């Protein structure tokens, strides 16, 4: 009897995702690289404290879309965005936005672990330093907290002065996540964060996401459909620059509405 009630509460909490605050909103986003249109009229909203996965074949535009949220595409020649992206109700492609401030709010973790060739401590403290924080005790606190948040503290607490490049691939990637957490962003973008890692490290990072979503909103691009299934609340399927389907992950993986989605997730593509 009790379990049944708990079950009802559980489904209740899942409904709450829909009631959560919208933190990212894309309105009719078109992206061009020169004459090539990489994204075609994407509309999508992402709720706070959720994990959203972008899946789709290579070149479908999912990474491009992800990189719009922290304006990492700005450095690409001939990149041109039409439409609006709102984060916390601020238009981030408005020309008075300070991009550095935006990126403080929207952190990013990359495909290959890319720690700086510095010590572990310096890696995590770097974000704080560039944002002008000089309070040493605060920096130290943040470093320890971030390393604990990614479950790396116990492994490196005696080696904080050692080079980050001496860590294993999985540890490096967790360090990169810690580095992002240290500046306390609201959103963390992840671009295939586990594609260069072994299964055990991958599992560790996936578990980490489960905890991180209590505090952060996570958007993850992944080539691994099973990964999207395991970790995300919502899944968006992209194909050739179109957003084909965007729905609860459970729905996408049990009963997709679009034939293309079904073909892709069942591996019968083409």
């Amino acid at each position, binding site marked *: 009897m009790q379990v049944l009630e708990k*079950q009802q509460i559980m489904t209740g909490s899942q409904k709450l995702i829909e009631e959560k605050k919208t933190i990212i909103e894309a309105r009719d986003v078109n992206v061009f690289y020169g004459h090539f249109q990489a994204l075609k009229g994407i509309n999508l909203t992402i709720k706070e404290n959720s994990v959203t996965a972008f899946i789709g074949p290579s070149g479908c535009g999912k990474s491009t879309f992800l990189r719009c949220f922290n304006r990492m595409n700005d450095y690409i020649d001939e990149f041109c965005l039409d439409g609006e992206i709102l984060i916390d109700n601020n238009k981030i492609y408005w020309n008075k936005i300070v991009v550095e401030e935006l990126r403080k709010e929207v952190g990013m973790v990359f495909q290959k672990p890319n720690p700086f060739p510095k010590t572990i401590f310096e890696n995590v403290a770097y974000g704080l330093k560039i944002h002008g924080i000089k309070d040493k005790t605060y920096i130290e606190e943040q470093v320890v907290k971030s390393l604990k948040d990614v479950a790396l503290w116990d492994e490196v607490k005696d080696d904080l002065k050692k080079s980050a490049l001496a860590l294993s691939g999985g540890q490096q990637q967790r360090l990169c996540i810690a580095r992002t957490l240290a500046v306390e962003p609201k959103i963390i973008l992840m671009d295939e964060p586990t594609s260069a890692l072994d299964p055990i490290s991958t599992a560790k990072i996936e578990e980490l996401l489960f905890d991180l979503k209590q505090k952060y909103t996570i958007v993850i691009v992944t080539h691994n459909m099973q990964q999207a*299934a*395991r970790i995300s609340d919502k899944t968006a399927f992209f194909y050739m620059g179109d957003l084909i389907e965007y729905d609860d992950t*459970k729905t996408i*993986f049990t009963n997709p509405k679009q034939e293309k989605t079904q073909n892709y997730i069942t591996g019968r593509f083409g």
Partner: protein
Amino acid sequence: MTHLDSELKQIKQQVIEMMTLVRNQLAKGKNAVLTFDKDLVHEINANEKRVNAMELSIDRAIENTLALYTPVAVDLRFVMASFKISADLERIGDNAVGIAKYINHVNEQLTAADLDKIKFVEMYENALLMLENVFEAFEKEDTKLAREVFVKDKVLNKINLNAASITIQFIQQTPDKINNYLYLLSIIRKLERVGDLAKNIAEELIFYIEAKVLKHHKKK
């Protein structure tokens, strides 16, 4: 705890919940037959909807788990076993409803002597005990406990075998209560089926825990 672990734990909780519900349904069926209480029949009918809803809910949870977490090895066997167990439970629930329904069709209560002769109470108690056994085995993942069910099922089979000749005696003695006796016989038949389903559940359990297939083999 991984995502998969928490999903599996939830499925297990739901199955245990369904087990308790189904066992109560069956126990109420016995009381209904013994006391001829039509209110109990209503209650059983109402609860049957909950049993069905639980089966659907477990099915959905299992579908999601398979689709999202691709369990393997022991986890996969657990999910497969749970899937079948929930179907078995639903059929036990159906049988409980079936047993209770007869009260609406029978015009007078069966006498205690008749019930005693056909060993109704003994059979019913045994069936309930089997369920309790197998449920406890599921909860504790105890295959030894599950195996006890196979022995108890033989008692049920024996009573069921004798039931036909006893029913013929009853009918010959008091032909005007033929309707009642036929219903009694089918209750016995349903109980026998409940025993078989309990046995099936035990087999699924052993498959899940020990990875041994006992189906269609002679049990020891």
